[in-house]
């Protein structure tokens, strides 16, 4: 699959498919990588090193900071795959690269293609939005 690059980079990881949208602010603790939103069905799961698959986005405009801080602290996801464009996450990744030289690819895929990625599958993301499952 080839998606639209919102932040470029290379990453490998296991897919964590979110069952519901998650606001990173109020949704993950950047100091641990755990999901802390008590209403989220995946409460307590860790996003660290995972390829986070989010069909829809939601929530706070502070999520850019949370993503950059999670990168700095070493608890960020390896990559984020989205079903719709999101400036807030794209900029969080861009700032993390600028400050710390660590790239976290954020790629937008057509929702129908995003849905084909099973939870727990190995996923690699290449330059230019190339996404390979399996």
């Amino acid at each position, binding site marked *: 699959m080839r998606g639209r690059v919102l932040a470029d980079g290379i990453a490998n990881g296991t897919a964590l498919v979110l069952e519901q949208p998650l606001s990173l602010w*109020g949704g993950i603790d950047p100091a641990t990588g755990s999901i802390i939103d008590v209403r989220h069905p995946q409460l307590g799961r860790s996003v660290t090193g995972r390829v986070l698959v989010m069909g829809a986005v939601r929530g706070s*405009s502070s999520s*850019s*900071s*949370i993503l950059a801080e999670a990168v700095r602290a070493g608890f960020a996801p390896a990559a984020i795959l989205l079903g719709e464009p*999101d400036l807030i996450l794209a900029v*969080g990744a861009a*700032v993390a690269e600028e*400050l710390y030289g660590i790239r976290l690819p954020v790629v937008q895929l057509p929702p129908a293609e995003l849905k084909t990625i099973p939870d727990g599958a190995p996923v690699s993301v290449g330059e230019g939005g190339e996404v390979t499952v399996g």
Partner: protein
Amino acid sequence: MRLVVRAAEVLGAERLIPITRAHVDSCLYHGEATIDFVRRLIEGGAQVTVPTTLNVGALDLLHPELWQGDPRAAERGRLLMDHYRSLGCQPTYTCAPYQLAAARPAFGEQVAWAESNAIVFCNSVLGARTERYGDFTDIACAISGRVPDAGLHRTDARRATLVLRLGPDLPPALLEDDSLYPVLGIVLGRRAGSRVGVLDGLPSRTSEERLKAVGAAAASSGAVAMFHAVGSTPEAPTLEAALQGREPEEEAQIGLAELRAARAELTTAPGGAPAGTPIGTVSLGTPHASLEELRAVERELAGARPAPGVELLVSTARGTLAEAEEEGLAGRLRATGVELLVDTCSYIAPVLRPSPLPAMTDSGKWAFYAPGNIGVEVVFGSLRECVRSAVDGRVWRDAGAWGAT
């Protein structure tokens, strides 16, 4: 400027347009990355080029004694707030800049606002135009004075594509109950996601406080950056106007059952916290209380004090507090045992007294985020229910609007 151009690429804009104001959310400390970023701006000699207000920070700078957490975290939070002031931003420290007369953009003004609830209010209630900007982008736009010509800056993107009609089974009394509005916002956010929706069936000229509650909740449960309410918001004098004369992509009804379920979900305390459940805390003012809401707290208290051991806290802007001081309202509230918090919010700063009992709130947003942020169980109710519950020390339920609970 590089960040603004990056934003333009993500949003698919072909050019940049000038803005008249900005509202910056980046001043809230989320770890050292937030300080590393602003230091980079300061080292580059950056200054904002348009009038720029600041969102809440990590602590109440006017009442630092309220801080009960790690002193080092307070020091980092204060440093970040100071750094943003040094870039030329105004120290407003409020998530409701639209309640400050000097910071309110006029209809049609192009601005760059961050803070999810402020974005929705700006677009929906004021009819000024902002995209859904986040941390880092907000200050980048304030420094460059420009935004991408895309998204909600353009008229076509402000068209409602989703019509949500209030069902005929909603009792008229419910439309007059404050607690309907945050619940309606939660449902709107879930149904709309990032689309622009139009609510049809609300009373015309619904108050700014109620529209604020809808927007704050919708931006918590969804990625809503704008909604219309027929007869209340400026781009929706009629349903046709909100749709810009076109057909909607989806039409749906919001019935009483869906609203009741959403209201129940806002309470996390065990057993749904029926009337009589002991509470330890009441937190109001998320987003920051307006002067009118501070007056409502006084009215509902009617001279009574919170029960012994119960903390009643209201968050507001330092600008609003100054007005409340002037009319004697702040002093009267404090004299009846109300704590007033400014510059921050009670689900961000460690200011609430530790209590094993649940906390009650009238805010959909607070109910959404406080359990994860500060580890409290939440009970949701109207402002009246919250204030009376604080006085009783137990959950008090209004028998009216929602029916038996």
